[in-house]
């Protein structure tokens, strides 16, 4: 006997819905079994907060007087994409401010980029616009400078092509020198192992076959409300899987969209990654409607069962050899060290588990208070393992 999203929404509106986080559901399924848990629990909330480089924001700047078809533009000296109409722009999270020394003095600090700019806008700070053009009969203006805040622009949407990676590599360094990567600083000779997933709280690891998450799924995005727009770039579901169906390699991804004006710098934070570049840490929480036993069983997955692959970032990752050094569980990663061929290697996360937990709790409160209803996906995301099962 399954439930529908409409039935769950009725319970949310009446204030009767049972909402638990992806951590809490583990104990409930363990204690009561999946069958009873599926009857009793309506929604499982998930969360993640980590650097998500494939992120950015569309902004409509409004028109200058006289009008201008912007050809090149900078916000706080960060170049923004202008190849869309006259005053629509896109801020890419990893774009660096002009005159940043980048990696000329290695490792570069990458102090201000698109991610920082998005954080400043969301924080309500004033940013400086500089734009140039070549002039047309209908858009004669050739230069425009002004200070603006998020409140001054007509539209501003976060629109991220690839977020919330379903699992990720564990990065190590087998070489004899320190390397600076998007997975953080990796000390030589297996000096440390860095990982980047919320594991048992991570949205896509709790719905591994995308049974509930689809186009139009309403989510917590950057502290406000967003939606799943599409599957993300590099979405790949043809990967090895563990017993819960959760992939043991980087797999599915989502593209997300939401109104920047409702978001918060606490959940959209500019990151400077030493020797690599700028990025944006994005907070995402996805509610999983407990439609049936299968859904709740998958959502009850625990760190002990979730596996990630260890990859050498000094040679195998940059050269794309595809070689893996081994597999470890998120429980091992979170304990502070892993064992690789007899060597104890300390671990460090890049994904904030405490903030992931905060997001899952916040989303749970929103739903329990009836402020956030679940949406019916227009279409589920592609997933070969699910489609084969159904087909």
């Amino acid at each position: 006997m399954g439930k529908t999203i409409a039935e769950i929404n009725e319970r949310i509106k009446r204030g009767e819905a049972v909402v638990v986080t992806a951590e809490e559901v583990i104990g409930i399924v363990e204690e009561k079994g999946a069958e009873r848990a599926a009857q009793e629990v309506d929604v499982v909330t998930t969360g993640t907060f980590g650097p998500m480089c494939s992120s950015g924001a569309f902004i409509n700047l409004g028109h200058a007087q006289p009008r201008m078809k912007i050809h090149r533009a900078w916000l706080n000296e960060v170049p923004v994409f202008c190849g869309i109409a006259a005053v629509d722009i896109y801020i890419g999270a990893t774009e660096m401010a002009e005159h940043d020394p980048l990696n000329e003095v290695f490792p570069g600090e990458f102090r201000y980029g698109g991610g920082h700019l998005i954080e400043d806008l969301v924080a309500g700070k004033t940013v400086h616009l500089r734009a140039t053009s070549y002039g047309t009969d209908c858009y004669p203006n050739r230069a425009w400078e002004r200070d603006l805040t998020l409140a001054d622009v007509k539209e501003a949407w976060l629109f991220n092509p690839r977020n919330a990676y379903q699992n990720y590599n564990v990065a190590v360094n087998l070489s004899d020198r320190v390397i600076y990567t998007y997975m953080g600083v990796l000390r030589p000779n297996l000096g440390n192992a860095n990982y980047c997933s919320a594991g048992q709280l991570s949205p896509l690891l709790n719905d591994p076959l995308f049974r509930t998450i689809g186009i139009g799924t309403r989510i917590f995005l950057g502290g406000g409300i967003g939606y799943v727009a599409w599957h993300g770039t590099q979405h790949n579901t043809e990967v090895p899987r563990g017993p819960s169906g959760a992939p043991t390699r980087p797999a599915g991804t989502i593209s997300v969209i939401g109104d920047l004006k409702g978001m918060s710098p606490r959940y959209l934070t500019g990151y400077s990654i030493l020797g690599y570049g700028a990025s944006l840490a994005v907070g995402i929480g996805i509610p999983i409607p407990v439609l049936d036993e299968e859904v709740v069983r998958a959502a009850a997955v625990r760190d002990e069962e979730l596996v990630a692959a260890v990859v050498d970032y000094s040679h195998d990752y940059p050269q794309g050899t595809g070689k893996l050094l081994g597999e470890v569980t998120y429980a091992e990663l979170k304990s502070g060290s892993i064992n690789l061929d007899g060597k104890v290697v300390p671990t460090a996360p890049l994904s904030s588990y405490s903030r992931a937990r905060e997001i899952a709790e916040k989303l749970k409160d929103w739903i329990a208070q009836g402020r956030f209803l679940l949406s019916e996906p227009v279409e589920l995301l592609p997933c070969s393992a699910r489609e084969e099962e159904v087909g």
Partner: protein
Amino acid sequence: MVRHKVVLHFPHEQVDKPIVSKLVRDYNLDFNILKASITPREEGLLVLEITGEDDDYQRGMDYIKSRGVSVQPLSQDIRRNDERCTHCGACLAVCPTDALRADRSTMEVLFDDEECVACELCVKVCPPRAMEIHY
């Protein structure tokens, strides 16, 4: 017995004089150099961990100050901006002491400035730049 971590700033004219060695010879103090640098203007900065009897320590510091060297406790040097820290944990990969460590139940990053040796490795590694240097 006391153990203090201090930051010494040497003015230009004192950089080439043997001052710190007197702490050992005349004041029975042991020291461990945590960091040493000379700026382009030839002012010196020395971060020391000093161990010895309290009396000797006080007299040693009085001597150092009498030579025009300023003395500051190190605990003021590296601070965490709690507003900026996202508790990601990237710093755990580089902290050589236990000054930065994770509370495994909350997975929050704890900062204990008593353990901090001001190596500054965390400062640039911290993605939201929450670790700040205050001299």
